[in-house]
């Protein structure tokens, strides 16, 4: 339309710093996790899956918490600032992907250690339900309508999910405890960690959290620009209608 050029960068010094920290710690996780750390006494090399599985699971749960908190902030803030809504949406998008990765790496790990891809363990079941609930949340965000309607609806859905998840977790817990011995997870799978293992896991958690923060910040800015584009398009449409009405008059 016009030849005016804008600053094409979305990154800021903060996101660059977070991104650099993420890359550095990810490199540590790959090198440390695959080569430096020792085998586990019981699990052997399978324990190496832990260094990515545990951090992705942590990020998935963190994303759910961020979405819930941002939704509550949107509902409670007097101004209903759209920034909260965009953070909630961005965090949910990242959370869905990390939750799917958690389930994938977890089931592969489970195949090695328990001999089965899936077990009806409360933690597994709750994670699976979180994934489905989140997919539903994103579907609600895609329903259309005004920005405010989208924000209000999805905030309510996010808070209803906060009610739902503990109920799901508790009922699966009660179900398993009544019908079976304690879950496979707390069986013989205990990992005795030495210093390098613990450090690598910790670096993994930090690295994945930085990745999550970087993704949410960038995604939130993309969403902000999409909303801004909508407003610009509205301005153009208003001008067009103004021309139309003066022509018809």
């Amino acid at each position, binding site marked *: 339309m016009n030849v005016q050029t804008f600053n094409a960068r979305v990154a800021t010094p903060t996101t660059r710093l977070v991104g650099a920290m993420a890359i550095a710690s990810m490199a540590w996780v790959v090198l440390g996790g695959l080569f430096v750390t020792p085998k586990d006494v019981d699990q052997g090399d399978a324990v190496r899956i832990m260094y990515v599985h545990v951090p992705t699971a942590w990020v998935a749960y963190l994303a759910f918490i961020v979405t819930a908190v941002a939704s509550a902030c949107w509902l409670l803030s007097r101004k209903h600032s759209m920034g909260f809504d965009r953070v909630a949406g961005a965090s949910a998008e990242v959370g869905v992907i990390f939750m799917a990765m958690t389930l994938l790496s977890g089931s592969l790990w489970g195949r090695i250690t328990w001999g089965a891809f899936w077990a009806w363990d409360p933690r597994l079941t709750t994670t699976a339900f979180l994934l489905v609930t989140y997919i539903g949340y994103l579907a609600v965000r895609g329903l*259309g309508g*005004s920005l*405010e*309607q989208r924000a209000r609806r999805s905030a309510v859905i996010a808070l209803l999910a906060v009610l739902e998840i503990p109920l799901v977790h508790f009922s699966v817990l009660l179900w398993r405890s009544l019908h079976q011995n304690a879950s496979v997870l707390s069986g013989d799978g205990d990992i005795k960690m030495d210093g390098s293992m613990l450090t690598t896991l910790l670096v993994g958690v930090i690295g994945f959290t930085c990745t999550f923060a970087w993704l949410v910040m960038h995604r939130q800015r993309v969403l902000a620009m999409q909303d801004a584009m*909508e407003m610009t*398009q*509205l301005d153009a*449409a*208003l001008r067009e*209608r*103004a021309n*139309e*009405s003066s022509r*018809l*008059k």
Partner: protein
Amino acid sequence: MSTVVDFRDAVVVFNGFPALAEASIEVQQGEIVLLQGPNGAGKTTLLRACAGLLPIVRGEASVLGVDLCVDRQSVRPRVGLLGHANGLFADLTIGENVLFWAQMVGASNVEVAATLQRFGIDGRLSQQKVMQLSAGQKRRCALACLVVRRAELWLLDEPHAGLDASARDEIDAIIREACAAGATVLIASHELERARGLATRSVSVVAGRVVS
């Protein structure tokens, strides 16, 4: 005399499209204002915005003294909207439909019976299910529901559509009567001759703006 509808440069977006583009209109109490204009000009959106159904994106809008940018809820019980849809329950009879709305405002059975009689939908006809009625009968039933709700501001979208001449006369009489009782009326209609005779003032809606 007080101002009932006051829109100043109001923008209302419907499906991403500015259906109302900086529209300004002022309506005093007791007026019957005819909105005329081609399809897609924004008449229906203006009426729905007046009912507090659609958010005001920019500009100012107040109805019955309530600022719609702040509060779209409290004005609603005081306005009656007859849109393209009739808002009727197809499986219920006329009488039951009218009674449902009457219950909501605490109107008595006597009032319901009187309203039904005035609309010529009493007796055996009132025992018919709405789905068995003609388009004109449904329209009359929807108007009857509006009357029992005793709204202060009437927003009528094509009230004459699908009605025969005598039914149109009846509706005009009802609108005049409501107006004499203090109600304010906004009508969107393609029946220009008839509506001009009824209206105290007419304005054009062109491309999302109101032109007097």
